[in-house]
């Protein structure tokens, strides 16, 4: 079968010859022809009557897209999705958005227009073109200039074209044919090599994914600090001789806001120096009453008489209405509540300092109520 012709090629040695020839070919009315040069030759576009490239419009359009994308994204993020006050600046700080917007403009313009040019204008990648691997291509990619007139040009006639090119000064005029194998190119689905590559890609993707997700992510540092070598509660520790991880606080540790009680073990000083800071107002006394009934009445009874509901299960305390206690300064009572006395334990953990003073005010009321004088009734 006769091999289908792609084009007739010819070579020229100087740029002047090539330009003149190209100009003649174009003027003769051929449209499906091309010039091949190892580097761009000035003036060839004009000779071939090729119009100015429109890739610039792509670049402009994509650049604008980039600018808009940047501005819209940043505006949405800073105004709507996650507004944050940063450095006291307004949410929409446009001067700060300029650098990113500029970069995205350039990025979009450059990347997309180049890719568009390569794919749509050049229709690359294409290593199956009939001109590849021809002696013509070898010359033209190095130092010679070439003109090809394609067979699908309406004016094409093999002999006429050969004559014309010879007349123009072309050398090594050759016919280039389509390679029948490549003529019928197109990727078949059931192709051993294709399926093989597909299998390899599938297998390697699966393997890599498996190892990444199931193995790598558990190794440091990819495990995102899931494994932390820190002291956890209730775990042993080999930093301490006794191997215990939970340590008691250091001796002398105090709670926040804690002030040590200055009269510990010194009841006389407590009585001498401590003064009740609270006045016997209604609220204070009510508070004192409530606390007294809660904490003190189980042993001391509801009226401080010592006749509580304990009834012998626990030694009853002496009455609070005795002369001794009535004559005690408030500070002594405070000391007893704070430190305890005899069988009575310290109530400091349960009753706050202010509450102790409130209780003392209430006790004074109880004492007065059970030791009334004539004068009080007036």
């Amino acid at each position: 079968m006769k091999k289908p012709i792609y084009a007739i090629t010819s070579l020229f040695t100087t740029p002047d010859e090539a330009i003149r020839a190209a100009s003649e070919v174009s003027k003769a009315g051929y449209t499906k022809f091309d010039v091949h040069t190892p580097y761009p030759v000035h003036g060839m576009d004009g000779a071939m009557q090729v119009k100015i490239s429109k890739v610039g419009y792509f670049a402009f359009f994509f650049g604008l897209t980039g600018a808009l994308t940047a501005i819209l994204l940043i505006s949405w993020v800073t105004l709507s999705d996650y507004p944050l006050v940063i450095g006291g600046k307004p949410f929409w700080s446009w001067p700060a958005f300029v650098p990113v917007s500029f970069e995205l403009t350039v990025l979009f313009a450059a990347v997309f227009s180049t890719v568009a040019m390569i794919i749509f204008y050049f229709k690359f990648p294409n290593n199956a073109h009939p001109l590849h691997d021809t002696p013509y291509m070898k010359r033209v990619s190095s130092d010679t200039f070439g003109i090809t007139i394609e067979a699908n040009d309406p004016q094409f006639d093999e002999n006429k074209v050969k004559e014309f090119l010879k007349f123009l000064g072309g050398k090594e005029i050759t016919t280039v044919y389509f390679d029948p194998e490549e003529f019928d190119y197109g990727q078949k689905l059931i192709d051993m090599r294709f399926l093989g590559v597909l299998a390899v890609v599938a297998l390697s993707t699966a393997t890599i994914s498996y190892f990444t997700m199931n193995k790598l992510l558990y190794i440091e540092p990819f495990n995102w600090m899931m494994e932390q070598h820190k002291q956890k509660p209730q775990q042993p520790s080999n930093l301490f001789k006794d191997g215990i991880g939970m340590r008691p606080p250091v001796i002398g540790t105090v709670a926040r806001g804690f002030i040590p009680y200055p009269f510990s073990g010194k009841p006389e000083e407590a009585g001498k120096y401590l003064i009740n800071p609270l006045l016997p107002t209604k609220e204070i006394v009510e508070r004192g009453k409530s606390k007294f009934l809660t904490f003190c009445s189980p042993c001391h009874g509801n009226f401080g008489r010592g006749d509580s509901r304990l009834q012998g299960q626990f030694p009853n305390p002496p009455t609070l209405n005795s002369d001794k206690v009535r004559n005690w300064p408030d500070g002594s009572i405070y000391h007893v509540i704070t430190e305890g006395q005899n069988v009575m334990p310290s109530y400091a953990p349960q009753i706050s300092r202010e509450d102790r003073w409130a209780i003392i005010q209430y006790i004074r009321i109880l004492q007065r109520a059970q030791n009334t004088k004539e004068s009080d009734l007036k």
Partner: protein
Amino acid sequence: MSEHRPQMDSLKKPLPPRVTYLGLALFSMGIVLYAIGYYVEPRHAAFNNLINFLFLISIAVGALFLIALEYIAGAVWSVPMRRVNEFLAGLIPFTPLLAIPLFFHLHELFHWAHTDVVAADELLKAKAPYLNSNFFAMRFIATFILLTLFYWLFTRNSLKQDSTKDAKGDIYTRRNIRLSAIFLPVFAITITFIAIDWAMSLEPHWYSTIIGIYYFSGTVLSALAAATYIIIRFHETGRLPGLRRDHFYSLGSLMFAFVNFWAYIAFSQFMLIWYANLPEETFWFIKHWQNGWQAVSILLIIVQFAVPYAVLLPQEAKMDPKRLKFIALWLLAAHWLDLYWFVMPTYNTSLTFGWMELSFPLVTIGLMITVVAWKTKKHNLKPIGDPKLKRGMEFHL
């Protein structure tokens, strides 16, 4: 083409007398208005005088810079048009005309010129070794002498070259190349100190390390614009024949580049001061954003960046003499606006724009027209002795 250049032995084609008359008329009108202005509102007049002084310096010194740039870069396309820049640089000796009235009004212009104000202000006292009237005047005189000297040296070499034949004249090119190398650092220093002294010290509490470069960007832009306008007019009236799209494209793309450069410098200055938000720096911009000045700020961005950018972006626009002429005049107006925006808020924190702003530029424009017209009578319009002239005329993109 051979070395013989029959039709280029002398390329004098003076501008018609009506141009000189126009220039002189504008200049005289301007002078009268100056006088009236100084009589009626001396402080306001001083500020307008300052704006026009800075404007004139931009164009004159910028033109000299463009000449030096051509020599140092070995540029070829600009050689046929270099004379225009030389004519514009010829304005340098005339700058004292606009400076001298300012020296009589330093008190009205600058806070630091008042010794009592300085004595009461710690910051001004610290700057007093630099910001005092005597040193200020000395700096201006030194700058003026240096710039005039370089102008004279450059143009003397270039003009002498006109009357040489063949390679004998090449020595002038070599000399000017060496001169350019020396001039560039001198230019950098002088233009910086002009900007610091006359523009930045209006607000003596404020400072910006980029001020020299800011003024430089406006300088080159306005010099390019003035040169482009004149070049295209000369081309249209047959005084610079043989210029092609290739030459105009180079002018256009240089203007486009400097529009971007100005915007870049202006934005950098603004953004850094905005971001750090230091009151000792931001007050300057706040002043330019209140009481009507915000309108001028926005106008400046539109006029000196947005519009020229959009107009000059397409490749054909950069090659089109008509559009270039329009944008050249536009950019000159924009540079005036830039200086007005920079300087005026010190005069009045509220927007002031009146007959003085509109009319004082007449002096500068009139002076420019007169000087250029005068020079076209005296000198060749192309540097006919320049060895690169032929390559310049044949220049192709």
